[in-house]
Structures are given as structure tokens and as C-alpha cells.
């Protein structure tokens, strides 16, 4: 293939307005997913992110029925689900993982019932919310996504040092006088906003992959939170572009194509990270910290 042909391969999709919108949307969504997802990873809240992503469904449906903004409805349901999960596990014997399982599946079920009802009367498509429809992003959607992205990024930049302390050592942050409950609520709201902005492009089922995939790959390659976030954004951006081109030329579902590329980056990072890769880290110097499953098996008595 000569360079001119290659150039055509790159440029051709960009001449289609729906592909332009899809690319911009994917880059915006990839950026905020990578940043808020980094907090999910370091706070060990990835499952909560998954729970919130399903829990937005009934809010979306109810808002549609009321003729309100579906993004607002979805956001309210997402935040409400985190509050409910917190209330259940702090006020009863039920632990957080069980509370998440209960709340998100109940919300999800109600959401599906409502949307299938609406679906039979209007042209709303359940599958679009579940798996996204990035090629159908309208200009209005794009403006909403851009606004949400702006709010998320400005908030994180403004609260960076407080969120850093809080996410590393919540007790220490509280003892130092930081309003940790408010910070937690802000973080949960940012996560709900991120999910709401991502519904259109990847859908609620796969958004968690965009949130934790780039961050997890970046965590293995960096040693500071802001570096992890920047690298995660870069990985998410490349994944979005590559995923969309693959989807265009190979006729693949676009959201899942982006997710597969993201996951590939994670596997590469897991295997080949200079300091911590499974294949590049046979002997670790200094404090013995990382034990791969293979190594720990090897030390079992009798093996």
C-alpha cells in the first residue's frame, strides 16, 4: 500500500459528518471516563461504577415519560443508587458488595421494564442505551457531552489535591478537617455524570470498561495519580480512534470495538510494563511486594 492510499484510508471516514461527530464524542467520553475511572481504581470502587452505570436506566425512562431531560433523570438515578447502597451497608449487616448487587439489579430491572413499555409506543430503542449508538450522535448530543465533560474536568482540576488525599487515606483526610462526605458525594456525582455522558456512545453495559481499562493499564506504567490520569486519557483517546476506524472498515459494533482496543492496551501493559509486567519482571528488587499467582504457588509446601 502506498502512502497516498493509506492517507485516504485515514481521511475517508473523516469526510462523513456522522463519523466526525462520533470521533469527537468518543474522544470526549474517553477522556472523562479515563479520569474519573482512575478514582474508581484507586478507591477500589470499580464495582460501584458498574452498579451506577446500570442504575441510571430507570431515571432515564422516567424523565422521558415526564418529558424532562433524560440526562438529568439518569444522573439523579445514578447518584440516588450510590446513596442507597451506602445507606444499606452502613445501617445493616448487609455488606457493600451485596448492597451493590441488590440495588443495581433492581434499578436495572425497573429501567428495562419502563423502557420496553415506552419502546412499544415510541421510537426509543432499549438497545441504544444498553450498547450505545455512537454513529447516531446528533449535534445536540455532542453539545451535551461537551458540557458534561467540561464540568467533570474543571471540578477534578479544582479539587485535585483534596480528592488525592481523600482517595488515598479517607480517615486521615477526615481527621485533617476535609469535608470527606461532601467529597465522596462530589466524586459519585462526577462518576454518574461520566456515565450519563457515555450512554450514547458506548452504552451503560460497557462503560465500565472505558472507565477502568485505560486507568488500569496506566496504573502499571506510572507512579503518581496525575501521571496515571494523563496516560489513561492518552490510551483512551488512541483506543477511541482505533476502535472507530476498525468499526468503520470491518463493520464492527463501534462501542464494543473501542472497548476491545482498550482491553488490548491493558493486556499489553500487564505483560510488558517495564517495572511491573508479568513478562518483564522476573526478579523484583527492593521490597517484595508483587507476587504473581505463579510465584505464590511455587512457594506452597510440597509443590
Amino acid at each position: 500500500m502506498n502512502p497516498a492510499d493509506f492517507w485516504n484510508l485515514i481521511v475517508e471516514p473523516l469526510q462523513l459528518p456522522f463519523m466526525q461527530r462520533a470521533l469527537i464524542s468518543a474522544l470526549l467520553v474517553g477522556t472523562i471516563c479515563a479520569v474519573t475511572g482512575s478514582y474508581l481504581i484507586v478507591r477500589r470502587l470499580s464495582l460501584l461504577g458498574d452498579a451506577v452505570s446500570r442504575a441510571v436506566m430507570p431515571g432515564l425512562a422516567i424523565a422521558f415519560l415526564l418529558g424532562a431531560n433524560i440526562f438529568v433523570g439518569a444522573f439523579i438515578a445514578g447518584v440516588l443508587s450510590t446513596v442507597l447502597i451506602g445507606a444499606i451497608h452502613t445501617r445493616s449487616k448487609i455488606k457493600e458488595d451485596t448492597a451493590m448487587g441488590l440495588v443495581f439489579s433492581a434499578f436495572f430491572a425497573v429501567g428495562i421494564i419502563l423502557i420496553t413499555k415506552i419502546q412499544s409506543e415510541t421510537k426509543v430503542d432499549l438497545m441504544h442505551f444498553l450498547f450505545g449508538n455512537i454513529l447516531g450522535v446528533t449535534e445536540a448530543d455532542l453539545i451535551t457531552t461537551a458540557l458534561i465533560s467540561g464540568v467533570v474536568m474543571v471540578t477534578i482540576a479544582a479539587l485535585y489535591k483534596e480528592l488525592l488525599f481523600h482517595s488515598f487515606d479517607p480517615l486521615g483526610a477526615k481527621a485533617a478537617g476535609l469535608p470527606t462526605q461532601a467529597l465522596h458525594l462530589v466524586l459519585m456525582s462526577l462518576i454518574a455524570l461520566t456515565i450519563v455522558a457515555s450512554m450514547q456512545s458506548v452504552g451503560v453495559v460497557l462503560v465500565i470498561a472505558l472507565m477502568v481499562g485505560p486507568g488500569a493499564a496506566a496504573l502499571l506504567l506510572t507512579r503518581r495519580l496525575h501521571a496515571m490520569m494523563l496516560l489513561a486519557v492518552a490510551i483512551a483517546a488512541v483506543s477511541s480512534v482505533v476502535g472507530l476506524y476498525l468499526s468503520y472498515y470491518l463493520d464492527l459494533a463501534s462501542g464494543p470495538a473501542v472497548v476491545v482496543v482498550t482491553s488490548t492496551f491493558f493486556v499489553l501493559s500487564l505483560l510488558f510494563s517495564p517495572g511491573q509486567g508479568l513478562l518483564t519482571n522476573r526478579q523484583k528488587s527492593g521490597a517484595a511486594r508483587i507476587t504473581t499467582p505463579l510465584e505464590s504457588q511455587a512457594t506452597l509446601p510440597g509443590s
Partner: protein
Amino acid sequence: MLSIENLSVTYRENLALAPTSLEIPAGRIVGIIGPNGAGKSTLIKAVLGLVSSTGTARFHGEPIASQLRRLAYVPQRTAVDWDYPATVWDVAMMGRTAHLGWLRWPTRQDRDLVYESLRRVGMESFQHRQIGELSGGQQQRVFIARALAQQADLLFFDEPFVGVDQTTEAIIFEIFGQLRDGGKTLLVVNHDLGEAINHYDDILLLRNSVVAYGPRSEVFNAHNLALAYGGGAVAREIAESTKIQPTR
């Protein structure tokens, strides 16, 4: 002066700390000791407002909640995830977060203070290390540096000597001494009753309520230890290891 009045904590209908009243003067290192589950950590968490409690805690007559900028808390080392993507510098700088205030970034003074804090615990040459690459003792020293960077007058340490090397232990006691001599008040939860006891000015013996509190020489005796730990093997072992004559 830290004044604790009728402070008590109940966990799911279990009384973890019976109503406790104490007056702790400035310029003292107070060792909080007692058996497992005696409410040692619970006491300091209740004072700091980290667990819900009844009663009050005041520092120089003001409610603790309004004095948080003047105190520092070093949690148990195991309370945080040391794989967190942060360097030694980042963690020590967290000590400045609350003082800086919203939307403000560290100034030259903050950076100098953090460097000086790291130097005092002997960790300045590790400032670019990721915290997971440190030994347990080094991690504890980073936590101590963070507390120093807070420039607090009242400091709480929860089991600072668990899993640390002797160098670290010596450094920590040296810093405790410097802080005490500077008029600070230190409350240190410690379950190890060996030689370390001699570094404390006062001892607070706990067993869900105050068994004894006062200068080490008056409080740390076999009678009180038997009250705190029971009269059995544990108390005999402690008496043996700390060279106290058992009660007849």
C-alpha cells in the same frame, strides 16, 4: 490541654468505650496501652470524630471539630493501600492540604516545610519513590513526615511501631521527644509493652474504660496491669518482660 468528658462509643449495641473523662496537659507523650479490643484506637477515633460517640472532647476549651487544623492523626499503616499511585513527596504534601485551603496550590513555604519534614525522618532522598517500593518502617516514617508537615499541636498515632525496623523506631521516638519538648501533646496507641514503654511520660491503661492514668512510674505496675489484662498468664508475661515485680 485536651479535655475529654464522658466520651463513650457503642458499636452495634456493644460498648466499645465506657464513658471516659480525661485531662491531658500539653507537653506530654501519653502511651495508650491495653489488651486487644480494649478500645485504644476507638478512644482516639472518638476524640477525632472519626467514629460516632457521645460526650465531648475539647482542645484548649474549644470543640475538637473546630480545631482540626491544629491536630494530626497518623492512622495504622495497614489502613491505606500502599499500591496507591503516589510518591513519598505526594503523601507528605497531603499534610498541607487542609492548611492550603480550596483552589490553592502549594507555595515555596509548603514545599520547604515538606522537605524539612522528610529530612527529619530521614526520607528526603526517597522523595521520588512510589510509596509501595518502601519497607514498612520507611512507610511509617512517611506518615510521620506528613504529620510533621501539618505543624500540629496535638498529635495522635495509632500503632506506629507495628512492623517497623529498629532504626525507624529510634527515629520516631526521637521525633516524639522533640515534639514534646516543643510543647506538643502526643497520644500514642501501642500494644507492645517492651522497652518502648520507657519513652512515654504518662501511661493511659485502658480496658474499655480507664483502668489507670498518670505518670509512668506511678501507673505502670503489676497491680494495674493485672486489672487491665486480667491476673493470668498475659499479665505475668508482661510483668516478666518489663521487669516489674508481680503482686503477691
